[in-house]
Structures are given as C-alpha cells and as structure tokens.
C-alpha cells in the first residue's frame, strides 16, 4: 500500500520543529508500525538525510518506550496496545497518517518523536516504593494473607508500564492515571501501609511540581491506556490523598 506520512521533525529541544511530509510505497500490511518507520529511515539514510528519531526498546508492548501520537490518538487507532504492537493492516492504501510526539509541558521533546519522560521517574522517586528490611530475616511476602480481590487490583495497577499515553491523551495533560496506578499498587497491600501517608502526599506534590494539568475526569486516559489501567485507581488515589491530608 501507498501512504503519506506527516511526521513531526525537530532537531533538538531548542529547535521549533515542524511537520514534514513523506510518501511511502509498497508498505506491507503485515509490517508493524515501527518496521514501517525502520524502512522509511533506511530510505532516508540511503538518500543521505537524517533518519527520524523515535523511542523503542522491547517491541513487544512491555517497556512503554514507543511514545507516538498516531492520527490523533496515543499509540494509534487500536485499543490496549502500544505503537510497536500496531500493524499496518490497521490502515488503508492511500491513507495520510500524522505521527507526533507526546505533547505535554512536563514531557519536553528531545528530538523528533522522542520526549523526556524523566518527570515520571521523579514522581516515582518521591514515593513509589516500599522500604524493605534486608537484615536477612525478611518475611516472605507470600506468608502475609491478602484478600484475593485486593491482590488482583494491586496487580492490575502494577501492570502500568509508565508509557505516558494517559498524559498524551488527556486534554489537560494530567498524569493522574499513572500516579494513581503507582499509588494504588501499594495502597492495596499490607506492605504499602507504613509509608501510605507520605507516599501519596509526596507523589502528588511532585506531580504538581512537574507541571502536569488538573484531572477533569474525561476518561480519555483509561480508554487509551495500553494496559487498561482503570479510573477506579484515580478515585482510590483521591481517597488516599484526602485521608492523608486530614491526618496531616
């Protein structure tokens, strides 16, 4: 199939950047989206042009690196997948496809389609952990009885891969879904209780300091999240936060 690609090109963080048009012919519907970009990059290299910089690593939907806004949606038109899992059969011959980086003040563009997501790391550092005693007689986690429902919900929250599609999709560039997943995975388990108050307060404080927007419950994040992280996590984080605020 033949395609027209409108791709965001930006030399560096300081460069203004613009959309550049590329045409591709003979794209196989069996290619993955990233393979299609690999082919385009090879063509650019052969012509002596600068290839398009884009993030990727695992190419199997685990690492969350492939951050691309494809045709107006995070990770493209399909549901519950990352861009590396998107295939060209989702498009038609003659299609025009927009490819842009995540847009958020807290995710500045480094080059072309690559954004800096270290704001997520700083939120994690602010409280997304538990302190484990490593004296040699640490209790086996499996020895602590945990309600099956809570264990499942904590596991679901823990599947967040930190891709940032939630922020990219949100009209307010809010990071609530990501932060709520990271708060929830501990809030639901006994191991998370000791630091529960500090965790939610510090993580939310860091989230706000990074310049993410306010959540208005549009629900776009939940729909676009490749891991199906639920809005229930945001409600849980709100409860945790209010509880922690009143504790002081």
């Amino acid at each position, binding site marked *: 199939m033949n395609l027209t690609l409108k791709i965001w090109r930006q030399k560096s963080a300081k460069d203004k950047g613009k959309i550049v048009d590329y045409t591709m012919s003979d794209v196989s519907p069996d290619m993955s989206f990233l393979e299609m970009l690999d082919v385009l990059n090879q063509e650019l290299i052969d012509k002596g042009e600068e290839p398009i910089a884009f993030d990727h690593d695992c190419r199997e939907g685990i690492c969350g690196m492939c951050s691309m806004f494809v045709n107006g*949606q995070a990770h493209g038109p399909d549901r519950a997948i990352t861009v590396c899992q998107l295939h060209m059969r989702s498009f038609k011959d003659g299609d025009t496809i927009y490819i842009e980086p995540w847009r958020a003040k807290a995710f500045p563009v480094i080059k072309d389609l690559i954004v800096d997501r270290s704001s997520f790391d700083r939120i994690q550092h602010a409280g997304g952990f538990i302190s484990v005693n490593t004296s040699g007689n640490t209790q086996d986690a499996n020895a602590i009885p945990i309600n099956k429902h809570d264990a499942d919900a904590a596991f679901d929250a823990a599947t967040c891969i930190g891709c940032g599609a939630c922020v990219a999709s949100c009209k307010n560039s809010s990071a609530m879904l990501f932060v709520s997943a990271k708060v929830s995975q501990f809030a639901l388990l006994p191991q998370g209780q000791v630091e529960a108050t500090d965790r939610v307060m510090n993580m939310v404080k860091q989230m706000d300091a990074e310049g993410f927007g306010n959540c208005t*419950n549009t*629900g776009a994040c939940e729909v676009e999240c490749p891991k199906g992280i639920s809005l229930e996590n*945001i409600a849980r984080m709100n409860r945790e936060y209010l509880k922690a605020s009143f504790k002081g």
Partner: protein
Amino acid sequence: MSGILNSSIGRKFAMALSALFLMVFILQHFAINILSVFSPDTFNEASHFMGTFWAVQFILQPVLIFGVIFHFVMGFVLEIQNNRARQVSYAKSNGAANSSWMSRNMIWSGGFILVFIVIHMIDFWVHEMNVKYVAGDMSGLINPADPTSGFRYYEELVVKFVPIWRVALYCVGFIFLALHLLHGFGSAFQSIGANNKYTKALKGVSNVYSIGIPAGFIFIALYHHFAH
C-alpha cells in the same frame, strides 16, 4: 483551605463539593418551580417562605452565592492551568475517540450557564433584593397596602415568560445545563473518590437528573408562555 487548593487533588475535591452543593440547590429550585404549574397558591407560599425566612436569606443564600462564584472562578482557573500544561498542541487530535463531547467542553457549557445565570439574576433576584431590602417591602403582596391582594410571586413569574425571546434563552440555558450535568454529575462523585460497585447505578441516576431536571425547567418555561 488555601492549603488544599494548592494541590491538584484538593482543587478537584473542592470543585466536586461545590458541584454537589449546587446540584442539591438546583433540585430544590426545581421542586418549588414545578409547583407553579400544578398549584400557584402553594408556589406562592413556598416562594414567600424562601424569600423571607431568615435562615434561607442570611445563611443559605450567602453560602449559595459563594458556592456559585467559587465554582465558576475555580473552573476558569483550572482551564487556564490545564491549557498551560500543553504548550504545543497536536496537529491532529481525535478527542472523540476516547472521551465524550460533554467532558471535553465543560468550560463552554459552563460559560453559557454563567451568561444565563447573570440574566436570570437580573430577571428575578435583583428585583427581589430591591423590593425587600431597598424598598423595604417584606409583605410579598401584589399591593402591600391591600392585604387581600394576594402574593405577587406567581404573577411576576408569569409576566417574565410572556416574551418569546426570554423563553428561548432559558431553554438554551437549560440545554447547556443538561450537557454540563451529563459529565459533571458522575465526575463529582469520581472526584470525591466514590468509584465502586454503585458507579453503574449512579450513571442511571445521573442521566435521569441531568436530562430530567433541565427538561422540567424547560417545560415550566414553555407552559407559562403558552398558558398565558
């Protein structure tokens, strides 16, 4: 108070509490207005009570005014902050793929509701304040000198709905209210942390409230326009 408003979740919580309060207010406002269709006398009694009972006038009314102003100011502040959180916008963005039109346009539905409220206040509230607190007439009578003249509230309501332009404006205002509520009702519960096994049932209540109440207000406006 200002402490909690410094955090994104605090602002969200405050926005939800003011919204829940305003939704209770709208419900009682509707309950009294609908009386004007079925029983003008009861409507007059209720209006007189609400307009003269001290606790309503000097406690609930100031709280309501504060709630309304807070909800609007906060809504605009949030909109500005949220716009700043994305400085370069997408060349192509398909919001309809993942969220409702209502949820993405609360600022517009809210803005039109604000215009409506200003007109509504000029229509009824400013007049009430003038009669009661400037002219000092607390009687609520059509002719204060004549105790047999009856209450004025029903008459005043009917007169307001004679011009078709005002009826049309009110109808548009209520359509925007419905759009605002269709997202806002459930959103307020999510914001206070209530997302649980009752959320599905709540969605049903939300739809009944968000469409039923504005439709009821529209019915009242049309009824008085065509009945008199």
